[in-house]
């Protein structure tokens, strides 16, 4: 991080470098946590309002005044005050660690998400790879929760997650490959920057990878679908189906532990929306070319992520859910072959149109 | 109908109902085929029934189900009755192709209320007989799985009997309920 040498030389020269690094890391973690809290607050409220208006009702209206915007805070406070129940036969250590892993995995991914050029907690060169890898920790947490609850229904939820999450990791990664091929780098900031020019150097919306070639457009759609499965959102919300498994893997969780799962879902949703934005939709570049952009970068970025989150919520409240074998069939028989096809197709396109770097 | 209907008077003709009961027509056919096991045709109003000997019941039912004139393929209802000295079971058989009902009835003593099962003739008899066993204590011989269905398994007694005494709270707690 380039803050480290600056801070070390100018202000804290008395301290060893490692302490400065730790300080920066802690500040960064604090910023991430604050942002996740804000995202969870807003996203939960937005979900309730979006779902309400789609269902001909109003949603939260009272708490905090304007359309109940503090409802999530009130619910969070209520959850904090609830009794912490651990089932007598549950595997206590695993039961306690599971929400930590789930929330931690979702939180860790924020370290590599840039909100603007250089506006990132940790500007690592393997950004995409890091986010995909760290998101997989969530799966371990869910399986742990399912097993440790000592409840066969939770076990079903955990097992379904194991199958679903690990299967959909593959099409997620495969559909991101064409973008990486085009950009030539795994660094998220550089990927966004490479979307500034495109189609005769005009930039703007034509620079976005989603519209560069038909295979990339297909990748965009398929990546979005795989990401829905990664975050357990309908139509892929089998692990937590209310109607079949009571509440799936988090049936036995109460209070703060449940709120960890709950926040982690919305945090994960933002991560995935962010990845879609950064890789396919120009990140913090707005629709117009870079030279005439007047809106600040983080604002554009957050707006785009919000659009994806809105789409995710829209789909949740419209579509029924898949059965587990249909879900697996979709992944293995459809998305993965399509992913491989996209890689080959994009590669050929790049070769034919001379875009190989 | 302005006054109290006097008991015993015949009913006026049925208004607006096309349920066809052909119990009267079935009686001579069954009598000629199964002899004295088909005991009598009742004269109850408005629905009559054929009183049948209980061990002849499965054959009679099979005949009613398979015979092309009768084709009673739907067992509509099995009712257990507690008549003062005896227990009775009433069967309402319906024919979907022919659209008619035939009503059979058997009577058994309260000391040994054993009736042959019809579960192998109509699968719907399975649960209907379990219910009759549960509430009245009529044992269906040959039933694949005769156990209580509506009441808890540990329940003692058969509530629909006229001499059933509702258990006190203490007795219920003794049952673990």
């Amino acid at each position, binding site marked *: 991080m380039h803050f480290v040498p600056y801070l070390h030389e100018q202000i804290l020269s008395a301290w060893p470098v490692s302490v400065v690094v730790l300080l920066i890391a802690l500040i960064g973690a604090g910023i991430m946590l604050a942002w996740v809290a804000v995202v969870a607050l807003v996203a939960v409220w937005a979900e309730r309002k979006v779902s309400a208006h789609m269902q*001909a009702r109003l949603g939260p209206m009272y708490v905090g005044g304007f359309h109940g915007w503090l409802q999530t805070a009130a619910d969070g406070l209520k959850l904090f005050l609830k009794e912490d129940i651990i089932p007598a036969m549950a595997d206590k250590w695993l039961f306690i660690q599971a929400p930590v892993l789930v929330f931690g995995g979702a939180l860790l991914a924020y370290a590599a998400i840039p909100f603007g050029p250089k506006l990132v907690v940790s500007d690592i060169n393997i950004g995409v790879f890091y986010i995909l890898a760290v998101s997989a920790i969530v799966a371990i947490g869910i399986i742990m929760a399912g097993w440790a609850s000592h409840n066969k229904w939770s076990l*079903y939820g955990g097992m379904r997650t194991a199958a679903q999450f690990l299967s959909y990791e593959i099409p997620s990664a495969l559909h991101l490959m064409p973008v990486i091929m085009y950009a030539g780098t795994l660094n998220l900031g550089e990927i966004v920057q490479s979307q500034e020019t495109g189609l005769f150097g005009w930039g703007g919306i034509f620079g976005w990878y989603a519209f560069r070639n038909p295979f990339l457009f297909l990748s965009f759609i398929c990546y979005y679908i795989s990401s829905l499965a990664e975050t357990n959102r309908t139509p892929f919300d089998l692990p937590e189906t209310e109607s*079949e498994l009571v509440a799936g893997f988090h049936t036995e969780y109460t209070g703060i532990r449940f709120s960890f799962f709950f926040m982690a879902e919305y945090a994960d949703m933002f991560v995935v929306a962010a990845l879609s934005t950064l890789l396919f939709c120009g990140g913090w570049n707005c629709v117009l070319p870079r030279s005439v952009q007047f809106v600040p970068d983080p604002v554009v970025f957050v707006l785009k992520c919000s659009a994806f989150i809105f789409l995710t919520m829209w789909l949740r*409240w419209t579509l029924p859910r898949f059965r587990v074998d249909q879900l697996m069939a979709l992944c293995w028989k459809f998305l993965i072959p399509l992913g491989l096809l996209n890689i080959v197709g994009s590669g050929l396109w790049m070769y034919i149109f001379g875009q190989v770097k | 109908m302005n006054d109290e*209907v006097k008991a015993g008077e015949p*009913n006026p003709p049925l208004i607006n109902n096309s349920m*066809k009961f052909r119990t009267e027509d079935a009686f001579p056919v069954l009598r000629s085929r199964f002899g004295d096991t088909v005991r009598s045709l009742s004269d109850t109003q408005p629905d009559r029934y054929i009183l049948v000997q209980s061990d002849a019941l499965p054959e009679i039912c099979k005949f009613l189900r398979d015979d092309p004139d009768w084709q009673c393929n739907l067992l509509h209802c099995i009712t257990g009755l507690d008549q003062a000295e005896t227990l009775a079971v*009433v069967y309402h058989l319906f024919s*979907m192709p022919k659209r008619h009902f035939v009503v059979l009835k058997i009577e058994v003593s309260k000391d040994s209320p054993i009736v042959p099962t019809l579960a192998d003739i109509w*699968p719907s008899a399975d649960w209907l007989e379990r219910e009759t066993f549960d509430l009245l204590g009529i044992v269906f011989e040959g039933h694949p799985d005769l156990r209580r269905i509506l009441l808890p398994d540990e329940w003692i007694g058969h509530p629909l009997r006229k001499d059933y005494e509702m258990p006190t709270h203490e007795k219920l707690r003794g049952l673990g309920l």
Partner: protein
Amino acid sequence: MTGVDEEAMDADLKSLGFRVEERRTLASGSDELLVNMGPQHPSTHGVLRLLLRTDGEEVQEAVPSVGYLHRAAEKIGENVTYDAYTPYTDRLDYLSSMNNNWAWAMTVEKLAGIEVPQRAEYIRVIVAELNRIASHLVMVGTYGIDLGAFTPFLLTFREREEILDILEEISGGRLCYGYIRIGGVTDDITPTFAAKCRAFLRQYVPKLDAINELLSYNRIFIRRTANVGPLSAERAVAYGCTGPTLRASGVDWDLRRDEPYSIYDRFDWNVCIGRGEKGTVGDTWDRYMVRVREMYECVKMCEQALEGIPEGPFRAKMPRKFKPPIGECYFRAENPRGELAFYVVSDGSKKPVRVKVRAPSFCNLSAVQELTRNMLVSDLVAVLGSFDLVMGEVDR
């Protein structure tokens, strides 16, 4: 396993028909699980308990255990008078109270030879069909939730609120009405009733089309329900299934057309049958779609009945101490769930000697055990929802 009451588990399993040795085998290392889909479960639609023997996610056998809602309705029938039994019939299948009341009223009317005035007949048809629409709306909404589509539930219940408001206006109740009595109806309809009904029916059909578009022809919904749990016509009749469940299996049988009671023979409408459009005849999509299509037919019937309500009394003159003649009577009516039948034995006194309720959901449920072999848990939920069971009438 430590800390588990082995004896209690054995007793419990025995009460469901499982052999105790099976449980020991399962506990000691085979891959099968015994999962309890308990009386409290979001998708058993009431207090139904299913014990599933599963191999992973595939259900090998599902044993139903009923009786959690048993309220001794038949025993009560021996202790109250005929007219006083009407509210108990409300609570059998609490989603279609008007139809239950009607079946009971008609049974006693057949027993005692009571003639119902024409105005009462028309009113009965209108409220019963409205109740049928309300009942099917519940099925459609909750079925969507079972399969993960949360929005149609809100839309169907919004429409149902309109119906409940209309029925509350004339009967005073929203769910259990006690409106249709022996001899007619409790009280005359209000002057605004007909106008409100017409207004509702007029705006209802486009909404039903919207719900159809959202759910019935959705590709994911079809993939979840087509070819799942097909019940052949022959097995359906053998198990005593009636109503939309039977019609979905392709059997062309509807009491309102084939054995018309009351004034049903005066209306022009169609019977909806399952044809296996999206898969096999008698699969869950058929069972669901038959109910959706029936709602259109109910609208037609209501509109025709509203046209023709004559003036006149709304109830036959019933004696204060009603004592039917000695005899016994069996009568059945077409309920939203099937054929509800009452068997009444009378000895000339003011209380029945025996009341037997033949509930459609009881017989429909008995078919579930055979139907749900070797299917996934998700499919089991879909099949259960499509049978549209109400435990109130299964257990009585």
